[in-house]
């Protein structure tokens, strides 16, 4: 299962790229894959989880905020 887990490090990227990149990468991934997204654009804290869910993916964990770093774990069904 290990090989099905990926990391997308978007720290430093301003809006709208965190949402665009997240959706773009999720579209490319194989079914069942887990994607860990790291971002530090504060607005992403709401927009990324809401938009990936709207696009049909699942949040495997609630969004995490570690100081200024935001972490999302998304599963592609």
């Amino acid at each position, binding site marked *: 299962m290990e090989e099905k887990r990926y990391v997308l490090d978007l720290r430093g990227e301003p809006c709208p790229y965190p949402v665009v990149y997240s959706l*773009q990468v999720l579209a490319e991934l194989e079914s069942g894959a887990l994607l860990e997204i790291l971002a530090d654009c504060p607005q992403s804290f709401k927009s990324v989880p809401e938009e990936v869910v709207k696009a049909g993916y699942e949040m495997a964990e609630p969004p995490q905020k570690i100081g200024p770093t935001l972490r999302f774990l998304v599963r592609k069904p």
Partner: protein
Amino acid sequence: MGEIIKSYYQKVIAEFWDQKTTVILLGILSGLYFGTVGVVWAVTGEFTRWGASFLKWMGVDVSPYTYLKIIKYKGTVLTRIDGVMVLGMFAGALIAALFGQNFKLRIPTAKRVLQALIGGIIAGFGTRLAMGCNLAALFTGIPQFSLHTWFFTLGTIFGTYIGIKITLSPYFRGEPKLVKASEFNAENLKANTQMQPFLGWLGLIVFAGILLSRPEMPNNLKLATVFGFAFGFLIQKGQVCFTSAFRDLWLVGRTTTLKALVWGMAVQMLLTAVFIAKGTPAKVLWAGPNALIGGLLFGIGIVIAGGCETGWMYRAMEGQIHFWFVGLGNVIGATILFLVWDKGVYKYLAEPFPKFSLIEHFGYLPAFILTGLFLLGLYLWADLREASGRSMIKNKTMPVRRV
């Protein structure tokens, strides 16, 4: 009891606030600001004056430029209402960012710096061409019942669409780098930010101290500073990004921010009407092509830059270096506009057109109804766009670099 206080503290001080609530609060405050200080909440006029001051400092004679007379260019940042209000906004946004442990110096890539500058210049130029930004020509402008704000808003809606097309072009989009989790160096994600809330409280004390220790400062300047602080604090806490209101609706059908803005404007409209009726002069400007073209350029610019004139302010205070360049671009763009204003811009795009106030032309009730319908139109457009399920990135294959 202690638990309850702790949870309140967490919600109010540490976490982001609900956007709609925050924007309604901003609407109320902005209406009160207009009623008590007598000017609308706006920032780009001040940016223009910074550009003028810089040129003056460089030895340029800025007295012939009529645009500077229109925006009442005189004094310094510390003697102007807009000046201290903007400083207050910076302080409020910085302290809010520290409270939430959101401060971090984020270094952009060279490409994004270029993008920030270009977008900032286009937006700064457009916004001053229209005589106001996302505030004076939109959020705080529509509740002034001036028709030019409608033109600006429509321009912004189309401009943001064009801006997204540019932002998603292969050059600017770039390629996201996807790493296998086993390959990823999960360096310490733990941030050293526990000190930030204390610095925030310290900053708040210093801010209050500065205000209290200046008895010679006129009351209206003090009031403007406090309002500015509240505006800055709120836009950071609610992450109120006007750019995203239109951009994300086009992009993925996200309605949250635009709907929040509509609510904020509706509440504000009722408040400003009371003050206008009581004699505070409304800000009404030329309803000409300048507003439409200005809105269009503004829309294009803010999306390329990633933030508008208030968006860069709070993000700059979060330590996002990218947005310092957006701010610089705004000042440059606004400066270019006042330099060319007398070279035909005013004569052809603004002067022949009336300063059209809905209240003066139709009376209060029709002005309410018309503005209400305009706001309802925005709200409906948001819902329809979302319901259509359209998205500018769905079903588009974009390259991903796998590492």
